[in-house]
């Protein structure tokens, strides 16, 4: 295809600067102007920097605690107050971003890898492959997520980041695989795919060069939203006592330890809850903005 395209492009370049008008370029042009994309994107970038280099946001060590400061309310010098152990709560909340961002991104990348491969195979080949994959996703679907996650975590016998990621991938891939499959199905019989096949393209080339780029948009949209869902799920599992354990620093854990002191020290719930919700919200809004940008019907 690329060979056939190039002379046309060269001619166009001689007359006027060509305006690229593919799906991705169009989407990007629209996104740049959309405040509902730029806002969340800036927030996510901020949280990402916070995860990579928390030292830029606070000079206080989140583990340097002083019991004489236990449960002090927020003040001018210590905006978020202190927790039960007398640690600076602002520093702890800042350092908490690392767990959430890491688990959110790795889980979704892992889920997407599995889903894109399985979904493409199921949608492209149909038949036995499709049926087999569909039945397996059905079975996973029928399992209640949190109960299932509890059992799997008990089997794995550990509560580290790796185990949590694995569990969240395990219970996340069926939805995304179904989405990818239906998206591939809608692209598979397009004229340009038939044309490429007529030109002698093999299955692998058809899938990777022609079907995939045109079927990926819904998965990217869902993936962005899924990051938010996963971050909330990690916090929930940690809150239930099944996720990360102390002395790890995670928003879910902070909220769990805030529970018995809801009345006397509400700031312990407020700040990690706020950061958690804003992060999740940013990813959901990002997904919404991406969906609007990728859907030509809404332009």
């Amino acid at each position, binding site marked *: 295809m690329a060979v056939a395209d190039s002379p046309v492009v060269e001619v166009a370049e001689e007359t006027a600067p060509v305006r690229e008008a593919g799906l991705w370029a169009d989407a990007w042009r629209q996104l740049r102007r959309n405040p509902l994309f730029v806002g969340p994107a800036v927030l996510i970038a901020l949280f990402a920097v916070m995860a990579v280099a928390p030292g830029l946001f606070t000079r206080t060590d989140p583990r340097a605690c002083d019991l004489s400061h236990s449960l002090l309310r927020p003040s001018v010098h210590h905006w978020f107050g202190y927790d039960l152990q007398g640690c600076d709560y602002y520093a702890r909340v800042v350092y908490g971003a690392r767990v959430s961002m890491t688990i959110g991104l790795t889980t979704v990348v892992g889920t997407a890898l599995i889903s894109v491969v399985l979904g493409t195979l199921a949608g492209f080949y149909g038949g036995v492959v499709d049926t087999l994959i569909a039945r397996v996703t059905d079975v*996973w679907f029928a399992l209640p997520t949190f109960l299932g996650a509890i059992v799997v975590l008990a089997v794995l016998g550990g509560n580290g980041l790796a185990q949590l990621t694995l569990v969240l991938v395990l219970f996340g891939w069926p939805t995304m695989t179904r989405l990818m499959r239906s998206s591939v199905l809608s692209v598979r019989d397009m004229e340009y795919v038939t044309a490429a096949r007529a030109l002698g393209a093999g299955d692998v080339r058809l899938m990777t060069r022609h079907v995939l780029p045109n079927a990926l948009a819904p998965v990217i949209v869902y993936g962005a939203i899924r990051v938010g869902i996963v971050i909330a799920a990690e916090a929930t599992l940690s809150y239930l006592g099944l996720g990360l354990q102390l002395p790890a620093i995670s928003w879910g854990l902070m909220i769990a330890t805030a529970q018995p002191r809801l009345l006397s020290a509400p700031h312990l719930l407020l700040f990690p809850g706020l950061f958690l919700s804003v992060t999740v919200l940013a990813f959901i809004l990002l997904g919404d903005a991406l969906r609007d940008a990728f859907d030509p019907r809404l332009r």
Partner: protein
Amino acid sequence: MTRFVVRRLLQVVPVFFGATFLIFALVYAVPGDPIDALAGDRPVAPAVRAELRHRYHLDDPLLVRYGKYLEGLAHGDFGTNFRGRPVSDILKQRFPVTIRLGLLAFAFEAVVGLAAGVLAGLRRRSLLDSLVLVSTTVVVAIPVFVLGYCAQLLLGVKLHWFPVVGIRQGWRSYFLPAMVLGSLSLCYVARLARASLVEAMRADYVRTARAKGLPERRVVAVHALRNSLIPVVTFLGVDLGSLMAGAIITEGIFNLPGIGQATFTAIHTQEYPTVVGIVTALVLIFVLANLLVDVLYAVLDPRIRYR
């Protein structure tokens, strides 16, 4: 129609066996010896251990054990836990709490969600519409347990509108947990109803209905609303099962003695039969709810039957 139902029923079978086997295999792969967990610190006499291992089929291969479990299940027997109490007893005691919670949450999300979605959809781009869109987005982003604490603190402790924890006050004590549990799905229902109503209002048949002079009320209620409700009904049906499963967190926050709590205790004390029993019951509910929705869907939309 019969053919459709039969075909769907046949599809349910592998899902049920697959899901229950998966959980069965997983639960029995949990490290640790259940007899030791039962005995605590005291040593168990070899004869007692052998008898217990035999009684709970602990020495049989996995597939044989699963077969025996299914055999019991076919007779309505969920097995007994390691303390000798029938699992169905535990289910009978715990499920009513979770079902009450789930049904109330379901009613809340269906009524409020639909009302909000329909009103927003009818007055597109109005203040109410923006309010619904913004509030649903924000609520979706707040994890359930954060929302639960906030509701508990504000409506329970500060305003005294609802009991804070437990189920001592009958139905009243379920309102707050049900609102928290249903809030997430409520947002989806509202957004789904809004989107699908907006689309229906632009459809040709609505324009036709208007063109032939029908009053606006009838256009909306009979022509647009009825068609736009199909995806909402599907979502609600599927959600009934997930509500029961999601209740585990809400039950923890509000200290309700439902199946969520039972699962927790069972896992910590390695009471595998209880865990398997609860998950089996949940899978059954999920599968049956899905089946019901599919059949309902086929009744509502004849095109589906003949695919």
